[in-house]
């Protein structure tokens, strides 16, 4: 997009109006996934495997089916016969296998059967009557053990073409990239540091469990209401898994109570539809929290080796990383993403990164905010911090010295367009936080972070009403206030007040395909489509004015919500407001709408820099975060308050990941901490205020300069906190979470 096409002066964009769904959400009337019901509705419940790995010898559902309250029981036989393919090419099969086990239960919590009954209690009671005969198999849950020669094989033939010969069948995808000659680079270095790091799986921890209400008839037509980040992917996947036509299933997205990547696929939705088809009644399914932890996607766990060479002045001469990610019993762990993001913040002559996607007996991993990137940043930025300490260099100066900028060949291949990393580092250096004195026992850490951002398939329609108001239909579920940003962007183009625009997340029957709300794409891609749809409507408004004035349409421009004669006709007529044109539109050519659909490609990568102060109690090993500052490039903040909210939320999740949160498996392969009491996410009293600085280096790929902001904010925290804790404790922490026992053990080992 040409630069002169880009707007820099704004009337509505950059203001902070109240969100349109605010009233519903503070009064309790907003309808989330579990808040919907239907006439004749049944309640579903799912029976889950207690074993980490077991052959399903027999399932006897007869006793459950004999109960008068039970109206349907389903097992894998009630789903379509989806073909198996290796790697991610077989994703429909992978999702089906995860939704309902086939020949084997592959992890603790894997669904094996489901019932629909007249009440939720009756459904749960009926589960106890289903008899499953298992042949328990050896299991593995650790990534390094899952790659070892003696590891139990989870599924033969799951590896795709990318995996080199001779690797264990549990290694299912392989990635290698980079440029230059790393060995030559290491030879030039004054200091070479090599170290290994481990992170545990964490869960997205959305407060709303998965919930849906499905209705499917024997005519192959259905309706689905569900909490999801993407109802078109839910539509497509459910249709494939049930063997019906995609267009015959209408999916409506409820208000969504948090997703963070975890609601980008389906779990219970196909099960509710299968039960409904069998019972011929609507079926509601709601997960318990324990089901959410045991059977929905956490992140991958990771084991990583990093080697970096540096000159005495801080110049990085070479970098190499190996990233092994475990993503449950299915292909999909983002070892490739981890590898590609790990060194992306730096302008490197010699770099090489290798990523592994490894299967283990755990739930199928799902995306979690910049999937894969936080782990790699933790490892790389920890090594850089240690090298700064050893060479007596300032960590921000070293990052500035090596920072990627416009024209840099990225570690993962392409050359960067205009990016804002240097601006975030300069802002960090100048921030009062960076020069504030530390108390004894405290340490400070900094880290950079990178995320690609994403465009994705997008379709938006804007329709004008006779009274001059506008309704905007977008297809990306609103997970953090995006309806407000869409209305601001439409207001900017149309020149009518923000309040006069009603934004609706349309169902799958109302718009064309829309990709999921993920990849930090919503404000970028749906925003771009909104702007273009509004411009499309403006073209038609100008045509109507031109016809009325009997002048060429080229002689009409749109200013402040009015058609205005221009060029040779300037001043010939009074400006014609939008509402005057729409009032007569029925008689001047019919309804006026704007539409746009495309897969925008200019998402614009994003960088951030975080500063953290941490205090470590040497007696208990407990860490307190005493100060936190997030600095991130937003390109252009459409609604700055919600941009701040994304920064703060990402930091808070990062704090949980760094200090507390982890999946803990017992020797038996069962998840030990499947409730919020034991899987402890940060609570209000754990956190300080989280300061934010919005840097705006416009993205050339968006008409208003927007870069997505949702994901980058979780990339720096793990490393920034690890650096702060390591500096406070005087010992390098290499394993997350840095829970009190681990810190005490590290302090003890350090003498």
């Amino acid at each position, binding site marked *: 997009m040409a630069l002169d096409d880009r707007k820099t002066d704004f009337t509505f964009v950059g203001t*902070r109006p*109240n*969100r349109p*769904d*605010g*009233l*519903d*959400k*503070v*009064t*309790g*009337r*907003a*309808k*989330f996934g*579990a*808040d919907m019901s239907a006439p004749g509705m049944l309640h579903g419940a799912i029976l889950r495997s207690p074993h980490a790995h077991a052959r399903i010898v027999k399932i006897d559902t007869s006793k459950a089916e004999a109960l008068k309250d039970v109206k349907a029981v389903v097992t894998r036989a009630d789903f379509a016969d989806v073909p198996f393919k290796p790697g991610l090419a077989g994703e429909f099969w992978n999702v089906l296998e995860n939704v309902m086990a086939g020949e084997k239960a592959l992890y603790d919590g894997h669904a094996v059967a489901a019932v629909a009954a007249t*009440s*939720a*209690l009756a459904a749960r009671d009926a589960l106890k009557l289903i008899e499953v005969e298992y042949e328990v198999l050896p299991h593995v849950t650790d990534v390094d053990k899952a790659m070892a020669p003696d590891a139990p094989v989870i599924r033969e033939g799951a590896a795709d073409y990318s995996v080199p010969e001779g690797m264990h069948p549990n290694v299912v995808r392989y990635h290698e990239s980079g440029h230059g000659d790393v060995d030559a680079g290491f030879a030039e270095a004054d200091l070479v540091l090599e170290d290994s790091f481990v992170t545990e799986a964490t869960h*997205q*921890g*959305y*407060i*709303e*469990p998965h919930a849906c209400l499905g209705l499917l008839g024997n005519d192959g037509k259905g309706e689905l209401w569900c909490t999801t980040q993407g109802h078109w992917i839910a539509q497509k996947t459910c249709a494939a898994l049930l063997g019906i036509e995609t267009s015959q299933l209408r999916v409506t997205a409820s*208000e*969504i*109570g*948090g*997703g*963070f990547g975890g609601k980008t696929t389906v779990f219970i939705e196909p099960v509710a539809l299968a039960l409904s088809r069998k019972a011929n009644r609507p079926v509601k399914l*709601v997960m*318990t*929290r324990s089901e959410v932890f045991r059977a929905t996607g956490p992140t991958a766990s990771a084991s990583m080796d990093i080697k970096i060479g540096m000159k005495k002045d801080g110049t990085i001469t070479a970098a190499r990383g190996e990233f092994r990610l475990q993503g449950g019993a299915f292909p999909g762990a983002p070892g490739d993403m981890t590898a590609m993001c790990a060194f992306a913040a730096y302008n490197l002559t010699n770099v090489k990164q290798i990523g592994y996607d490894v299967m283990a007996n755990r739930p199928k991993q799902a995306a979690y905010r910049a999937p894969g990137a936080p782990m790699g940043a933790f490892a790389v930025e920890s090594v850089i911090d240690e090298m700064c300490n050893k060479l007596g260099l300032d960590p921000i100066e070293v990052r500035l010295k090596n920072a990627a900028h416009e024209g840099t060949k990225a570690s993962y291949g392409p050359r960067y367009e205009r990016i804002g990393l240097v601006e975030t580092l300069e802002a960090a250096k100048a921030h009062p936080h960076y020069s504030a004195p530390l108390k004894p026992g405290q340490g400070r850490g900094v880290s950079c972070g990178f995320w690609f951002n994403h465009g994705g398939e997008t379709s938006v329609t804007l329709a004008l009403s006779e009274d001059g108001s506008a309704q905007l239909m977008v297809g990306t579920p609103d*997970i*953090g*206030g995006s309806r407000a940003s869409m209305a601001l962007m439409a207001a900017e183009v149309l020149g009518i007040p923000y309040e006069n625009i009603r934004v609706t997340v349309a169902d799958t029957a109302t718009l064309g395909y829309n990709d999921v709300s993920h990849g930090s794409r919503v404000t970028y891609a749906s925003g771009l489509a909104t702007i273009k749809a509004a411009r499309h409507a403006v073209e038609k408004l100008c045509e109507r004015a031109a016809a009325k004035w009997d002048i060429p349409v080229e002689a009409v421009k749109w200013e402040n919500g009015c058609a205005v004669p221009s060029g040779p006709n300037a001043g010939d007529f009074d400006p014609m407001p939008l509402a005057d044109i729409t009032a007569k539109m029925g008689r001047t050519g019919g309804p006026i709408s704007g539409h746009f659909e495309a897969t925008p490609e200019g998402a614009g990568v994003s960088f951030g820099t975080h500063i953290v102060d941490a205090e470590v109690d040497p007696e208990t090993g407990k860490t307190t975060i005493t100060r936190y500052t997030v600095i991130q490039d937003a390109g252009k903040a459409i609604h700055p*308050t*919600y941009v*701040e*909210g994304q920064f*703060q*939320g990402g*930091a*808070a*999740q990062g704090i949980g990941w760094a200090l507390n949160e982890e999946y803990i498996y017992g020797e038996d392969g069962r998840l030990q901490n499947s*409730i*919020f*009491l034991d899987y402890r*996410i*940060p*609570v*209000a*009293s*754990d*956190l300080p*205020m*989280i300061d934010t600085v919005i840097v705006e280096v416009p993205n050339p790929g968006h008409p208003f300069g927007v870069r997505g902001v949702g994901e980058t904010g979780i990339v720096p925290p793990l490393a920034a906190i690890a650096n702060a804790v390591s500096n406070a404790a005087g010992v390098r922490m290499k394993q997350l979470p840095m829970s009190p026992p681990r810190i005490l053990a590290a302090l003890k080992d350090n003498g």
Partner: protein
Amino acid sequence: MSKLHVTTTVNGDEVDFLCDPRETLLDCLRDKLNLTGAKEGCGTGDCGACSVTVDGRLVCSCLMLGAEAEGKTIETVEGIADGDVLHPLQQKFIEHAALQCGICTPGILVAAKSLLEKNPNPTEEETRYWLAGNLCRCTGYDKIIRAVMETAEELREAS
């Protein structure tokens, strides 16, 4: 199992329902009375999304049985506003963007209102500890704490 007949007062209205002895107050509010403002985030009293007050006391409605509501006075998020006039906390939460997805908001509003009734001048630390039973995964709590503290200040000035 035979059902129990429960009569109780919810947001000022006398209501009754039949419930299974195993059903929680949260189940009854949501499924029998169609008051779906209170949410089930965990069912184990850890997340606070189901917060309501019972005879003025803040409780997790997922930890109380529906049968125990007999003769009690219950307030939920649906009763916080005075008709179409929002409670200052509700107004401030919207203005401060103290919610992102909004699933925790009903519970946090009920808990925050309960805090301000007991302590009209809470410190930041007191506010953070009072709300420590209400999980929010989106906001990092920053804007929530600011909204509660600022509402407290305005209510003090107004009284």
